[in-house]
């Protein structure tokens, strides 16, 4: 397959010039093509925000939902049809603010979905208010004296909850981001990939250059199975590490349901034997 297989004609993209979303869109298409995931077998569930519009700009089964609610919808989609590749996509405000509770519980529930978070440390669609990841001191139209809230650290939180796959990337490094993304998609269980990107319109602090200067990759010999070390690395602030922080192989939500142990066919295609259910109901009615 080729990234072009995901191209849509006549699309009217609503992002600002220079937005990190463009690069991420390109990375996504390439990653899906390289993994040979056909658009018909791909479901992208997104929330609300500039980044949540992404699935409208390439070929896939899209459910562009509500602010913060992509995860519960994606969880159910995967549960009724585990044959599909399911992505929950949104921004830092969508996933960590409005949908924060769902992130916490998706980590615990461990559905086999990939949670892509466009993290530009600012609200774009509503024009420049602080997000849960905006740095202390940043001034906005609502945080007029600068942000006073401690920034949310998704990597540390995910590791502390023993998440199945935790990674961070930066759209400035296309190939490396794509590799991490592909691993996240192939990982069985809930994978979260927090992706730094610039917002040229509203975030004048954390620019493309800033991310380049303030990030570095975890070294080759880094062991992503060491939870304590992973946590230690996740709270580094001087420079922010990129890469796969933590992998914890465990049974996925779908596997725990007990409905896919003997049968592989997705629940949504199972025809219930109507005689069986009639008999079952009759037995319960005795």
């Amino acid at each position, binding site marked *: 397959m080729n990234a072009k297989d995901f191209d849509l004609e006549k699309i009217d993209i609503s992002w600002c010039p220079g937005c990190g979303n463009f690069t991420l869109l390109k990375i996504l298409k390439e990653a899906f093509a390289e993994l040979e995931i056909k658009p018909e077998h791909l479901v992208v569930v997104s929330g609300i925000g500039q980044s949540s519009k992404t699935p409208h700009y390439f070929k896939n089964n899209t459910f562009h939902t509500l602010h913060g609610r992509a995860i519960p919808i994606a969880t*159910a989609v995967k549960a009724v049809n585990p044959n599909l590749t399911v992505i929950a996509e949104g921004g830092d405000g969508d996933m960590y603010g409005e949908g924060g509770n769902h992130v916490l519980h998706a980590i615990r529930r461990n559905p086999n979905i990939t949670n892509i978070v466009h993290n530009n440390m600012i609200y774009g669609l509503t024009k420049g208010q602080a997000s849960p990841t905006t740095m202390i001191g940043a001034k906005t139209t609502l945080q007029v004296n600068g942000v006073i809230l401690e920034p949310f650290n998704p990597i540390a939180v995910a590791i502390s909850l023993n998440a199945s796959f935790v990674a961070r990337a930066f759209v400035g490094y296309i190939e490396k981001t794509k590799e991490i993304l592909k691993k996240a998609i192939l990982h069985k269980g809930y994978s979260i990939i927090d992706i730094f990107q610039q917002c040229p319109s509203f975030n004048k602090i954390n620019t493309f250059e800033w991310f380049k200067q303030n990030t570095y990759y975890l070294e080759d010999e880094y062991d992503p199975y060491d939870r304590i070390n992973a946590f230690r690395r996740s709270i580094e602030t001087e420079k922010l590490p990129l890469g796969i922080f933590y992998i914890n192989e465990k049974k996925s939500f779908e596997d725990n349901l007990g409905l896919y142990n003997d049968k592989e066919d997705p629940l949504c295609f199972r025809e219930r034997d109507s005689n069986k259910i009639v008999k079952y109901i009759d037995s319960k009615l005795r």
Partner: protein
Amino acid sequence: MDDISIVLCGEAGQGIETIEDILTKILKISKYNVFAVKEYMSRVRGGSNSTEIRISPKPIKAYVDRIDLLFALSSKSLDHLSNRISENTLIFGDKEILGDNQKVIDIELVKTSKKIGSNIYANTVTAGLICGLFNVPEYELQKFIKQFFEKKGEKIVKKNLEAISEGYELAKKIVESGIKVKTKKSDELSRDMGKDILLSGKDAVSLGALAGGCNFIAGYPMSPATGILSFMSANSEEVEVIAEQSEDEISAINMAIGSWYCGGRGMTTTSGGGFALMEEGLSLAGMSETPLVVHIGQRPGPATGLPTRTEQADLDLALYAGHGEFARAILTPGSIEECFYLSKYSFSLADKFQIPVFILTDQYLLDSQHNMPSLDQKKYEIKKYVIKTEKDYRRYEFTKNGISPRGIPGFGEGLVIQTGNEHDEIGHVAENATLRKKMVEKRLNEKINLLKNEVIYPELIGGKAYKFLLLGWGSTRNIVEEALKELKEPKLGFLHFKQVYPLPREIMGYLVNAQKVLAIENNASGQFANLIKRETGFDIKYKILKYDGRPFSVEEVVKRIKDILER
């Protein structure tokens, strides 16, 4: 006496619910018609909980205030039920516990239980006593108790058998003292009860959903609606249903929506307070034209209100919930049978019109149970509407019949694109004014019109050539029906609504023929009467409302109807 109302009252933790379970089953096996409903406080220990069990040779399906036999297991029982105790009530219990009340017939329920080893057997002693009074053969109850407590181990079974036999001894003493409590069994009448089933409202909603093809349920625990989620969880693997306790109600409704999007048949179950959190999700279902089934077991609000009690005050909530305008249907089962049939039907209805469908019940209905002839499993056959998509599939295509064929991801060559934003026929975000107008009409007016073509008509009970017409919806059905039998007023008709929205087009036809139109509702503002006014302009003058958190009783309905008819 034809029909006997037995009430058992004790503290939370004294096993009142267990006796209800044992007695309804064993009395049904012994060919009595039984009805039972409980009322309980929002606490795990202490307080006062009671259950009413009616026994009759004829089918009975409603709550009465009257207490014929009261078994009081705790000191607060008599105070708790003081409004319902009359001079004809026989009160049984330990004088040591209940105090020196002249009305109390001193029967050592708790003391006997302590003799066996602990006061926790008082409920089983009482069950034995009641079975003794109603001539249930002791071996039948023994057999039943063995099965009932089997899982808890031999010791527990043995102690409970001892408790039964003590109960039968106490029954003998009562009979010997000259107190007579007898009613006919149904086998003395014509109908064969052998094949009857015993079913509660909550089990009927669950089984109905399964019969309707439900294979996904998500919910957050909340009285009185949790029973549906527990039923599904207990039977998940056997009937292939995903039953998930979500982190909050917001997640629950969105999971249910996600399941439908991908070809499942999902529902969520909650009460008014939980549903308040789901409203945005409801709106998403409306905008994205995703089918959805929402069960709301109503309880008194606002806020936490009376968590374990009953009310019909969330009709407005279901009717107006969600921002923006879109079609919906609201089904309001009035009996346990209707809980089954309408829950089953709700899935095909949601699927056909791609709308949210509500099943609106309440604590009284969910926690009621009675025997009935087996249900007709052929009624409301499952219908499914998912199509296999073609390459150029458009999720929101404008069609002649007003409904866009619904595809699902991974079934066919097309892509299924949905959004909560306004959208074009493909499913992409769009802001064109002409398109917007057309889409609104598709989601709202056209669907409501189509729904009206398939509306479930209200059921007219009582006088067909009525001069007085009483309107009700939901759980008041059987209470009013029994009241009508007592009133014996041939000019009084009762119109029971199983679907309150949309209403049939012909609704005025029912109203214009009546001299007096009344409405009965378990709420304070007459929400259904207001809906009738909104839809027809017809003002219902006489409202029988109740909002103390308790269900209507047959006696109360008789009295309040009489008051109005005599005006």
